[in-house]
């Protein structure tokens, strides 16, 4: 099967140094894939602090597009391609999103094959992270 395509488009609007409005189209990246997995990873109420969750990107060993949003209600600690959180990579606040890669091809070396996060406090209400992962093009 020929590669499927995910079309990722992004744009940015902000205020410049002289109060001018700057509107930037960051363009569209066509991300090829054979494997995809999209969903919610639930973080149930009562989940203890420091619980590690691997984002279930399943059979995707080399991501071309990976979007991740934190809807847990708390800040989480993220790590990319590192299982032991040493050193930590960085925190992602509640409500934040990240695009860990949106590429027209897979990285030849050190592709993203694993993303994990740790909740920093006990989970007080039901929460989740949402994710869109595409990769493994031929």
């Amino acid at each position: 099967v020929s590669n499927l395509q995910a079309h990722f488009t992004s744009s940015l609007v902000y205020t410049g140094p002289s109060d001018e409005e700057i509107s930037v189209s960051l363009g569209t990246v066509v991300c090829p894939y054979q494997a995809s997995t999209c969903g919610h990873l639930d973080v149930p109420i009562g989940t203890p602090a420091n619980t590690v969750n691997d984002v279930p990107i399943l059979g995707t060993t080399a991501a071309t597009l990976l979007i991740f949003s934190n809807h847990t209600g708390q800040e989480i600690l993220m790590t990319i391609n590192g299982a032991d959180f040493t050193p930590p990579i960085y925190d992602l606040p509640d409500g934040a999103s990240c695009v860990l890669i949106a590429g027209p091809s897979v990285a030849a070396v050190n592709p993203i094959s694993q993303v994990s996060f740790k909740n920093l406090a006990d989970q007080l209400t039901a929460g989740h992270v949402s994710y869109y992962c595409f990769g493994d093009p031929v």
Partner: protein
Amino acid sequence: MSNMLAQLKLSLVYEGPSGETIVLKDLSVNSPYQACVNGTIDVPNGTLNTAVVHLDFGSLSNVTMMVIQNRTGQEIVISINQEDESFTVSHNLPDGAVWIPIAASGAPVGTNVTSVQIKTTGTQVGAGLISYRLFGDAT
């Protein structure tokens, strides 16, 4: 002075498991900032393999949004929050790729993105550049 806002919009169109077209429209994040740094890092023709570039954060210490685009023509290596020379690799970014490690309505309370190092993977052929847009230090 009240915070300014950088508004990021993302949209996605892809093919679902049954061949259906799935459209994710306008995932939007508003990131407040008092400080921003936007620009390009040039990677001149002939830049040697494994040259390391340190992204300049200027006065920024609490990033709420960061957008990086690889326009070098070659794959680059990313290292995050490694101030020393160990250059612990996070991942590689192919040419033409976009990387948005954080787009948040506030800076993290804990570990912020405070440094990014980028390394070339081959000798640079032709002029290339890395685009960056950083926002943060919201009050």
